[in-house]
């Protein structure tokens, strides 16, 4: 184990004690997992009729359609959010108060309001029906919320580019938009990339909210399945596994991008409404 601020490297006595702890805690964990499995078995939740749907072609197709719609919603959402984020993120950096203030207000508003509220309100706005209306309400909500977060990421990313870069660019006679487009953004994108991928995980997870507005996403397909087979536990389990696989893969991608492109520059988005110095949101090394 690597050196830690919490304790010294253990000696032989401590290591023996740790082995005892490990044995005890291992037994306790095994007991907990065993009890859970036993309860599943006792209540008949391992019964074939509950699990069989997930190997039945018809049900697999229902779930695959849901998965496809989920990925489609996530893709639209993240693309829309990128546009929104670039627009409002650079708006927040503007020199003009008339641009900066509205951009700030829009970003703060959509970060402070629950995503589900935005989705439901949009859904009632366009007419609360399942299908296309529901799907696009979900996408609009995801764009507004994730776009607001990406705006913060964009702002932090641009701020993380060393000041000498823009100063040098101004010194050789570039204009404001040239500096942004040619000097700052290309460097900022590298720094932002890991944070953007991490936000994709959030967007992907939040596509599950389509359930609330009857949008045809994976969770809604799941609802069709567990309404038919009365297997809520099993369906939730299968959907969770699908999401976990996708999200863990994306998280690895984010870590890789961090190492490959961003190095020590790590973007941390500050909390909503933060007015103290952590609202700068960057940790430039």
């Amino acid at each position, binding site marked *: 184990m690597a050196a830690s601020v919490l304790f010294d490297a253990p000696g032989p006595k401590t290591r023996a004690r740790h082995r005892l702890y490990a044995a005890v805690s291992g037994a306790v964990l095994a007991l907990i997992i065993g009890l859970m499995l036993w309860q599943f078995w006792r209540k008949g939740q391992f019964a074939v009729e509950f699990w069989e749907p997930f190997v039945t072609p018809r049900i697999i197709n229902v779930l695959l359609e849901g998965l496809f719609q989920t990925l489609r919603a996530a893709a639209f959402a993240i693309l829309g959010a990128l546009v929104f984020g670039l627009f409002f993120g650079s708006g927040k950096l503007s020199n003009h108060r008339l641009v900066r203030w509205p951009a700030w207000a829009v970003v703060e508003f959509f970060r402070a309001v629950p995503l589900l509220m935005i989705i439901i309100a949009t859904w009632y*706005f366009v007419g609360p029906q399942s299908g296309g209306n529901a799907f696009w309400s979900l996408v609009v909500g995801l764009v507004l919320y994730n776009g607001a977060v990406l705006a913060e990421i964009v702002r932090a990313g641009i701020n993380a580019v060393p000041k000498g870069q823009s100063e040098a660019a101004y010194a050789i006679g570039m204009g404001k938009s040239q500096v942004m487009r040619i000097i700052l953004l290309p460097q900022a994108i590298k720094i932002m990339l890991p944070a953007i991928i991490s936000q994709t995980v959030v967007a992907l997870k939040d596509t599950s909210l389509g359930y609330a507005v009857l949008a045809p996403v994976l969770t809604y397909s799941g609802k069709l399945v*567990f309404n038919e087979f009365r297997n809520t536990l099993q369906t939730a389990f299968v*959907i969770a596994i699908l999401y976990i696989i996708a999200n863990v893969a994306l998280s690895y991608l984010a870590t890789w991008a961090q190492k490959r492109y961003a190095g020590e520059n790590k973007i941390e988005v500050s909390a909503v409404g933060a007015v103290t110095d952590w609202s700068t949101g960057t940790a430039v090394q």
Partner: protein
Amino acid sequence: MAGASCERGPSTTLIITTKGRCVPMDVLIDNADRLLDAFVVTLRLFLVSGTLSLVFGTVLAAMRVGPVSILNRAGAAYVTIFRNTPLLVLLLFVVFGLPKLGLNLGYFNMNALALTMYTSTFVCEALRSGVNSIPLGQAEAARSLGLGFNQTMTQVILPQSFRAVVPPVASVLIALTKNTSLCSIFGMAEATAAMKGLLNDNPADLWWIFLGIALGYIVIVELISAAAGFLERRWRIA
């Protein structure tokens, strides 16, 4: 009944009658009781699951940074599983699923349980990164000054960790506030459920209803943020 004195045309235009006030905002004033009750439920969900998440998240963080590798791995597995599961799926599992295993604590508790299972993973990560942000040299310097384990912890490491974890924990609690909205799908009459109810009854007042309820959430979020700012200033060195 909201806006009982107003007649509405086929579109959203208001036809003002002589009976009393008839601004669209009436929908919020007429339903003030309902909204207040709803936000009380939101706050109760937040307080119960927030407190439990801080406790359980601390336990998880202790497992993650402690010296026992099996607990470390169990903590890591828990965090990976529950952080990457959408909260909605977790709520499905807990609120609709667990009663099938014979565990039923009532709607409120089941909702709070799912929120806790989810939020504590984020609390754990926030605390862990707080501890990890303390440079190793701090502990080494403390020990070379002759401070014992307890002194090193209470005088050097923990005060710095507390300060470092305030902003991320505040972010987690703000996210929790917003996540309580998902409980509207699982039988809780909280603020988002109230919005949906009002939208059903008064479709023409959509903007007022949306903005009014949004304002309620914004107030809660700003309060958490202000509290975090206060703690940060209080624990600042120099």
